[in-house]
């Protein structure tokens, strides 16, 4: 159903885009039809729609589907430029955002990714912006939590070698954990679609470790947890990043390991955000489910872009507008852009995975 809706929206976007070609507008890049990413893409789309509605504007951005691939992202970004986009919201993943950065620089059209955490996404590029913390920040927070709160001393790191996100998060965590006098016992690589990676967690359990960082995406981690059977599994604490946003993983983890924690961008129980409750209530009323990280980040990103969008400006002008965002109140935190296109002081949420329910809010840390 979601895919059908998304396809219709894309068609609509193309038609509208075709009709209003070259009129300055806002573009949106999301993976709406990808097998792997469409779940997150559609959650983000729902956050986008709510933001458009809440902004009270008649103005309708153009949405393009990336198909969840790098080449699809490049083609979709190009299409948005042809259709007159002078600023783009999205894409949501690190690899797609890195590709978007190349196109953005070439056309001098800025993009704001709500959720791509790869450090290099915004590096040395005046047209690349993000509304979330990066992997370095998340890794610092996670490493400090693991060492100081959980007192984990010896950790294995399991990394998806096929994604920049996983490799980036794993590397940053290893460095941060080592700086905290922790020991990285091993880094074990896998490829998500490689059947031989099923036993990775058993290999981890066979090591002399207190736990492991599973730096991949939630669905892949869930598959590995499900396949694992080592007798020491129940002694391990597993850690993850924001890519763990997976119901499947939340269900299986508490039944297999001693404990599990992961970072995220947003939690409905975050007591420090006064704006969270109204947003959660509105979103839940519309969609019958509480908002996810992607929905919340996209909601913030869309409202922020629409608040600074000026149809009289070209891409360079819009980049300056994004650059000038200060103290902007979002549901995921208060955002001020630094000169590198990253938000300053974006909080990092830590969640604990518990049996029989949604993850529990643990704490929110600042960089």
């Amino acid at each position: 159903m979601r895919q059908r809706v998304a396809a219709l929206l894309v068609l609509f976007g193309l038609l509208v885009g075709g009709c209003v070609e070259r009129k300055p507008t806002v573009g949106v890049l999301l993976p709406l039809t990808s097998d792997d990413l469409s779940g997150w893409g559609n959650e983000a789309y729902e956050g986008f729609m709510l933001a458009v509605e809440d902004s009270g504007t008649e103005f309708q951005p153009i949405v393009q589907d990336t198909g969840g691939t790098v080449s699809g992202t490049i083609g979709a970004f190009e299409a948005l430029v042809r259709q007159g986009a002078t600023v783009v919201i999205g894409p949501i993943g690190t690899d797609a955002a890195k590709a978007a950065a190349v196109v953005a620089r070439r056309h001098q059209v800025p993009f704001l990714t709500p959720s791509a955490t790869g450090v290099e996404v915004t590096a040395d590029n005046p047209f690349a912006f993000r509304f979330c913390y990066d992997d370095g920040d998340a890794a610092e927070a996670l490493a400090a939590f693991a060492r100081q709160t959980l007192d984990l001393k010896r950790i294995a790191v399991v990394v998806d070698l096929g994604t920049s996100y996983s490799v980036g998060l794993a590397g940053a965590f290893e460095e941060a954990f080592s700086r905290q006098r922790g020991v990285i016992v091993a880094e074990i690589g896998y490829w998500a679609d490689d059947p031989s990676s099923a036993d990775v967690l058993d290999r981890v359990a066979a090591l002399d470790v207190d736990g492991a960082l599973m730096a991949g995406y939630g669905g892949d981690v869930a598959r590995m947890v499900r396949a694992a059977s080592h007798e020491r599994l129940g002694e391990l604490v597993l850690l993850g990043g924001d890519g763990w946003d997976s119901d499947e993983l939340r269900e299986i983890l508490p039944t297999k390991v001693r404990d599990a924690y992961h970072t995220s961008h947003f939690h409905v129980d975050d007591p420090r955000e006064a704006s969270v409750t109204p947003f959660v209530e509105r979103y839940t009323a519309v969609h019958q489910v509480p908002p996810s990280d992607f929905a919340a980040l996209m909601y913030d990103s869309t409202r922020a872009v629409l608040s600074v969008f000026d149809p009289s400006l070209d891409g360079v002008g819009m980049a300056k507008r994004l650059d000038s965002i200060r103290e902007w109140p979002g549901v995921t935190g208060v955002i001020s852009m630094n000169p590198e296109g990253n938000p300053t002081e974006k909080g990092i949420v830590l969640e604990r995975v518990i049996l029989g329910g949604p993850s529990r809010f643990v704490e929110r840390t600042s960089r």
Partner: protein
Amino acid sequence: MPPDRETDRSTHATPARVVRDMSRVLEVDHPIDADEFRRRYPRLPDALKAIHRRAERRAGSGASTDVRDGRHVGIGSELDDYRIIGEIGRGGMGMVYEAEQLSLGRRVALKVLPSGALRNQRAVDRFRREATAVARLSHPRIVAVHGFNISGDSAYLAMELVRGLDLADIVDKLRSARTHGRRFVLISGPDLDVDVSEWARGRKLVGTVPGDPRAPEGIVIDLRNYQHMAASIAADAADALRHAHAHGIIHRDIKPSNLLLSENGHVKLSDFGLAKGIEDQSLTKTGDFVGSPAYVSPEQASSRRARIDERSDIYSLGVTLYELLTLHQPFAGKDVADALRKIITKDPPPPTRINPRLSRDLETIVMKAIEKDPDKRYQSAAEFGDDLRRFLNYEPILARPLGPIGRLARSMQRNRITWALAGMGLTIVALLAALTVQGGSGGRASVILQEVGRTISDPETLGALQSASELAVDLSPDERQRRILEMADEVTRLLDAGDLELVLQRLRTIDVKVALAMGSAGAPLLAETLRSTKVRTVRAVRDAIGRETTAQGRRRWLLALERLLGDPDSLVAKNAAVVLGEVGDSTSLGRLVDALRERDDRVGKVAVLRAIAALGDPSVAEHVADIARSPDPWVRFHVLETLEALQPEDLELLTVVFRGDETGWIQHRYRMAREGDR
């Protein structure tokens, strides 16, 4: 006689004893049991070789003794204050004996000029020059002269006796010794194949074994520290040259056989027979070639008049170090003329091409020392020696490697014809491009393509040039981008179809095509679009290696992985490093060491370090230590972990490199490594 005792005695068998025993066996007239004889005399082959060598010497010199003034110069004879004890060697200038100086009771090396040579004024001059030159010098790294006499029919030079080997011997022995899989190798003594690993393990070896009664007989080389030993020898030799140059003397014949390595590991510079004063500004005359062909500087080798100064010695010492490190002469020729021609015209292969495990810093030092232009070399022996010591102390060296542009410029200077042809190739590309623009010129284009096709036989290269030309002429950036995406898609489709060979072929040329067409602007787009395909290619190659049944086929796939290791994208490089760490071989290890030096991204560097640790070959520990001066603490941290993994029993290098590291968490990790508290 008990067999054991007989065998024991046989280990000291002299040729004479062997012959005597053989005669005795023959006398009792019973069949010779060859196996029994070999058991009794396990070193018989060496003894027989010694007999043969001695016979050769006799044949070569006419006699091992010299008759002068009615006196025999031979073992036991006396020459003035010296009694001959034994032969050391035979050089171009006559025999060298070990002798006792009777008045002082000390052992010396006595170089005796053959009586016939006394009629050769040039030889006498050379002999005198050596004596007077060295007499001005007093340096622990220069063989001292104790006495000299040249009068009538008698000419000899009494010198400091150095027990050991010259570097030419060492290179020869290393070329022939079984070094594979060994850390320690015995390069002198009766049996080179003795495995000395057990004896040497845990001992600190600078390169040779000082008089340890338990030590194997001979000089032991620690192969793991070999390049540092070689650099240390060259640094000491540079010190000797600094002293000689400071006293106004140019040696002019620096080569391995004139550098002696004593048994206590010290190098000594000898044979100043061709030495010349720096102040003597007379030019080398045409055809007046002096020195040893393989080691002379281009200005010495040149037929043109050229000024020879101390930088010629620096060059020759650089060539010597090159040979020590690679066991190859950089300018080996089929004859003297060929060698001299190469010295003047050819660039030697970089040492790491011959021995990939060598330090790139050390290579840079060597290549600077053997620059053809004296102005580009180290300008003094002090500069040369100081840079070598910086390398030995893990400090940044001052020499800078010649970059690609520098190499290109030098190559263009020397190989004008080749570059003219290359220019023609580029012209063809441009012409093709122009013809492609002119839509109606397809016929002419095909004619030219046929011509190009006759010149360039490799269809892949031809195809790459052709499609690059098409990309180059397409003036629309959108269209260029579209074609790049198409090319990337094509590679992905080929991979999906399982045509791995073709994928690798396309990946080899696609960067070139895009660079030709779009310059650096196309690279980021290509990198983004091909990243996941390249990662999948690494996996496909890994699977292919798993299926491969032949060593040759396996190496071919490993080569493909090694190429992917050089990819500028750190994710691709990391994938290649991980797989090479699992399935790589010793050649891959060399490529990993190269990658360690070449990569400037921390993800790639750390991945390469992990792969090196996974392969676990301690012989590359020094190369790993070379990058410990990285300003990035995360890289240094991995250097520490890698060294710890490579040297579980010997933490000496770890200590040298990390004892003073001021980063707290690295220091903490270092202490854990020292204490073995994992």
